[in-house]
């Protein structure tokens, strides 16, 4: 069984509210030194990335690949999938901050597919997407998917 490892590195200075960190994709080098901090993590919106934003990027990417695979199994590979993930961090009584939800929204252009077949592929992709299963064990996952008429 092939096992693939990927690594990220963070350097952090100071403590909590005044502390700051920088995030680097150590395996690919695709991003490096991305700043982040506690105030920007919990703000309604912020110009800095955060762990939850990185999880959203991971989930959207993972789900897109799973859905592409399912549609290809149906012999209707997608022309274009647009997948948006919204990850929600909230305070949970007695537990502090938790990721409570990841909401996926999909807009798809899939020649040769129809609503029934498409929605079935969407369900299989959700069941088969490793990150949906993983995050879904601790948080609520939902998928709202629309097939564009081509």
């Amino acid at each position: 069984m092939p096992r693939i490892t990927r690594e990220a590195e963070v350097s952090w200075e100071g403590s909590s509210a005044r502390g700051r960190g920088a995030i680097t994709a150590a395996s690919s080098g695709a991003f490096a030194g991305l700043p982040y901090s506690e105030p920007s993590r919990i703000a309604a919106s912020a110009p800095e990335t955060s762990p939850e934003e990185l999880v959203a990027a991971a989930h959207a990417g993972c789900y897109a690949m799973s859905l592409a695979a399912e549609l290809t199994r149906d012999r209707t590979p997608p022309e274009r999938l647009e997948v948006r993930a919204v990850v929600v961090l909230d305070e949970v009584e007695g537990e502090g901050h938790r990721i409570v939800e990841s909401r996926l929204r999909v807009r798809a252009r899939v020649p040769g597919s129809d609503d029934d077949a498409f929605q079935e592929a969407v369900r299989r992709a959700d069941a088969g997407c490793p990150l949906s299963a993983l995050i879904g064990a601790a948080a609520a996952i939902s998928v709202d998917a629309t097939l564009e008429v081509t």
Partner: protein
Amino acid sequence: MAERRAEVTWKGDLMSGSGTIDRVGSGALAPLDVTWAARAEDESGGRTSPEELIAAAHASCFAMALSNVLAKAGTPPEELRTSATVTFVPGTGITKSALSVEGRVPGLDEDGFRAAAEDAKVSCPVSQALAAVPELTLEARLVSD
């Protein structure tokens, strides 16, 4: 409550197709290309992947949580360097996330640091979201000036 978003566009089938993480809410991540090959082969070819992004989320969450744990204990850190190495088995998913930390923490000994690191590893929001990963491991080490 904080919502964070990311948008991905994918074209084609899984094996020969490709995608881009086009946009994230903060604007801090440039467009990032993703492919199945870059995800599922030993060599990433310079492209990120869902698992590398999860590693980044885990390492960054853990660093912040540890900083909090140490500050609350009255021994705030000067510096922490953390890493997360995520193991991915194509077809199965993430089987392991290995955290490691080197810390410069005045006034704290190795045992105290390891205990704080263990506390942060268990309690940080991303660890909680990854609770179903079979192996979440930790190495923690103090460095002195």
